[in-house]
């Protein structure tokens, strides 16, 4: 009765680099899935392409490892054909917000009953460290050798604006909180978006002065701002530092959703 039962033990150890945060996010997501008491035959994992998107390959259930950026399009298909299945999507920042950006906003708008876990490492990890739409300003990557000059996407704000029912952001340091957020996401009808900030030591950390994996975790920890504290700061008119990531449950509502089994849907 733990996340280990959902992993294909014969496929481990996985190919992720030492210290890659993706493994942590898989653990937390599977722990939440395990606590739902779902049958493995009724659960499907879907992903696109990227290091993060390799996750379903290590899971015992049926899964779809699709084309780059199209995880949500395939997941929509699964959910519309078989609303009785539980569908969880693993994706990366490049997969979700660059090539798959339009699928992302429309899946949120349609509010399809999916749980989307995005491992946001702020880089294209798999292809060697190109900048992504979430690479922060000033950060180095192979395509921004003098520092990124573009403002980054805030994926959670994007999901809220586009209409997702549940949105939360945590990091690879906040494992218990992340597990709980994924669980709430799995329980919430409609699209649940969980953004997990993770470290990519090989292609992000190494280029951005994080010599050890631990240094980046310390950075992530120090730059996480709890939503409750952010709200208090806003009330008191204090400025929110630009380099902080707001973490916590950012949205929970009940807009009309799609892909919900008939018996559960409101009359």
């Amino acid at each position: 009765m733990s996340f280990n039962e959902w992993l294909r033990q014969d496929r481990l150890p996985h190919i992720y680099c030492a210290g890659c945060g993706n493994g942590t996010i898989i653990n937390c997501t599977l722990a939440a899935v395990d606590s739902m008491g779902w049958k493995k035959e009724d659960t499907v994992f879907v992903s696109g392409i990227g290091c993060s998107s390799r996750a379903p390959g290590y899971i015992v259930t049926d899964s779809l490892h699709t084309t780059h950026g199209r995880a949500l399009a395939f997941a929509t298909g699964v959910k519309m054909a078989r609303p009785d299945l539980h569908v969880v999507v693993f994706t990366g920042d490049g997969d979700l917000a660059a090539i798959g950006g339009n699928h992302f906003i429309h899946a949120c708008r349609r509010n399809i009953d999916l749980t989307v876990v995005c491992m946001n490492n702020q880089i294209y990890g798999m292809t060697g460290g190109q900048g992504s739409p979430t690479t922060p300003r000033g950060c180095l990557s192979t395509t921004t050798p003098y520092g990124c000059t573009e403002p980054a996407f805030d994926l959670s704000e994007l999901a809220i604006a586009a209409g997702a029912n549940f949105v939360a952001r945590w990091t690879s340091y906040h494992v218990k909180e992340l597990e709980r957020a994924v669980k709430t996401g799995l329980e919430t009808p409609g699209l649940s978006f969980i953004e997990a900030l993770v470290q990519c030591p090989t292609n992000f950390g190494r280029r951005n002065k994080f010599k050890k994996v631990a240094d980046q975790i310390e950075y992530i920890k120090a730059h996480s701002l709890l939503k409750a504290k952010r709200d208090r700061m806003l009330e008191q008119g204090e400025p929110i530092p630009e380099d902080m990531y707001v973490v916590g449950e950012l949205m929970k509502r009940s807009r009309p959703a799609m892909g919900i089994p008939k018996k559960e849907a409101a009359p």
Partner: protein
Amino acid sequence: MKLAIDETRCKGCNLCTQVCPYRIFKEGKHPNRRGIVVPELDRPERCTNCRLRHLYGRQLCGVCQLTCPDQAIHWVEEEPYEPHKVAIEY
């Protein structure tokens, strides 16, 4: 219950040394056969889950296990009456 690191999976990232409230994981010193420096366990019998799992009948703490990106941390059942080293903390 006894805490254990699976040496065939651990990649030596040392994230576990950062998250345990008891600081049970210590950076290792010697590379193993695969060239990986696996962390050492400092008095693992202090771990909350080792001590109380059976009493409460559920997983306790488990932060190291969730954090370990390589699924290397687990617990093994002990033999009945296995000798214990007792750690007294002041």
